């Protein structure tokens, strides 16, 4: 079903649950994303797109965070079934 195909976070669809695999970023932006909970192994949810399609809102832990394509396209993930485990 293509469930385990690698994609960037930006390519996900609203409603998708995504297992973060790696981040192709560095410096302050990498630090910031890790601090917010975008860490390898975490499952985040694509909540919704803004009207112009960018940025996109993601649910991480119990918080919703909007990311621009610039960053979300650099985060590799896999689509997974079900809910965010700590919800």
């Amino acid at each position, binding site marked *: 079903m293509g469930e385990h195909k690698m994609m960037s976070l930006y390519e996900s669809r609203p409603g998708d649950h995504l297992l973060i695999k790696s981040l192709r970023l560095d410096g302050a932006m990498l630090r910031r994303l890790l601090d917010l909970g975008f860490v390898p192994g975490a499952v985040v949810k694509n909540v919704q797109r803004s009207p112009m399609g960018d940025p996109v809102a993601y649910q991480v*832990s119990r918080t919703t965070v909007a990311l621009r394509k610039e960053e979300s396209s650099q985060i590799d993930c896999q689509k997974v079934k079900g809910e965010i485990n700590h919800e």
Partner: protein
Amino acid sequence: MSDFRIALAGNPNTGKSTLFNALTGMNQHTGNWPGKTVIQAKGNYTFNEGNYTLIDLPGTYSLYSNSADEETARDYIIFDRPDVTVVVVDATSLERNLNLVLQVLEMTDQAVLCINLIDEAKKRNIRIYDDRLEKKLGIPVASISARNKAGINLLLKKIEGVAKGEIVTSPYQVKYSEQMEEDIQRLEPYVSQIVKGKYPTRWVTLKLLDGDRSFMDHLYQRVFSEGDVSHV
């Protein structure tokens, strides 16, 4: 009579300000947007005849200085050296919150973990083992509900214990890669000569290796303003 300074650190929306108000009887505005606590609020409380000044630091996810809020919180813990830093975390979102806890434990031994919103966690069938966390982290842990003023007494007791040195902590330290640890070891003696035990040596060393210019500037200013430039 004793006087202690207690700093409250924590992620945004963990109920830090609610706890601050509960303890000080003040009515600092608590609300739900980022950057709310840019200027630290101060208040007082007494416990077992000790006088405590409580400092409400800005809510941050991190102390790596991505923003003015983080810088304020970081500088207070590093330069103003509170007697105890209480890290307030959200019981329903421990995983993310513990990131900040580990960062604080790199900066100070004098810390207490306060797990807030424990009532909310119970509702969600989340069970937290305070005793196991205490062992793992090496600092006192207290679960509370600031909203319902539950668990406050135990928290104050643990803060008192650390402030008076009656509770000796042994904080969990993040280990870095072998290469990194070697670099730290090589640099630490020099850093130690400059900070002379006033600031956490390992942490300052990490910032140096990190190339954190803004922190180095702040450190230089501090050391310089104290007329202590012999080793710089």
